[in-house]
């Protein structure tokens, strides 16, 4: 199917525009009140389609994605359900940007793997009421990092 383009947001918007134009033409050209009402319904549905398509489009940038079979979320507050513990594998500058979200999510303990900690970050985590643990979380579950 390479001779037709994949449907993108534009395809949906154009389809919506076509339907809306059809509805407008119906409202203006028909003289039967019921048909005019039905034409208005066509227009309303065209707008509905725009809403759903744009919602999907906006969500696709930031929504959950599947990485190697595991669902990945853009931020911890997007994860449904409670989160017990978090483990950090990012530099402390990045860690500072997510530690507030961790506290908001109600995470109890945060494991800072070697290289992800800094004095400011640890202080900030403790100030937010998170139990900060400076250790390798792979060793913490009784496994060896060599295996990964």
């Amino acid at each position, binding site marked *: 199917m390479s001779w037709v383009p994949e449907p993108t947001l534009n395809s949906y918007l154009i389809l919506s525009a076509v339907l809306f134009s059809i509805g407008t*033409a119906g409202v203006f050209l028909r003289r*039967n009140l019921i048909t005019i009402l039905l034409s208005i319904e066509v227009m309303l549905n065209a707008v509905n389609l725009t809403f759903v398509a744009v919602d999907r489009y906006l969500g696709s940038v930031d929504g959950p994605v599947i990485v190697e079979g595991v669902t990945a979320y853009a931020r911890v507050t997007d994860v449904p359900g409670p989160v017990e513990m978090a483990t950090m594998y990012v530099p402390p500058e990045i860690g500072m940007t997510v530690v507030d979200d961790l506290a908001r999510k109600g995470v109890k303990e945060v494991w800072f793997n070697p290289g992800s900690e800094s004095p400011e970050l640890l202080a900030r985590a403790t100030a937010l009421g998170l139990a900060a643990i400076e250790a390798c979380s792979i060793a913490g579950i009784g496994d060896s990092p060599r295996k990964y």
Partner: protein
Amino acid sequence: MTVIAFYLFAAVAVVASLLVVGQRNPMYSVMLLITSFGALAGLYVMLDAPFTAVTQIIIYAGAIMVLFLFVVMLLNAASEDPVSGYHARLIGGAGPRRLGAFLSLGLAIELFWALRNLQTAPLASGDQQPPATSVYDIGLRLFQNYAFAFEATSVLILVAMVGAIILARRERA
């Protein structure tokens, strides 16, 4: 697969909508509109909005269109029934109709001109939320983030209901 489905649903929706407007018998128009709604529900499924799709079928195709069918049957408006009186002068005259055709053509041209060179570049990821797909998500959004809009809509529907009753009430002689 999705490509075929998209063009199939889009074609069905457009053709059915064209026939809705083109039909002289309102009865067939209603039936074709239901077809169009079905095709749009398919598109909603493709856009990861299964709840919207099911609502479209149940509420629109199921309830509202059946209501329309009843109205068509009860009014016995089986064929083109030009409105008379004030409304006929308002929308039925040759002048307003020509103007209406011109305006709708203008709107169509404007829409396509606007969409012609629209870029589908990814939007900057700001504070958007993931799309609400489950009923749970939609319920939360509706009563937390959009509670005001929801309540305003219910007031609007109440106003429409009162208006319909007042308009439909026969004048006591």
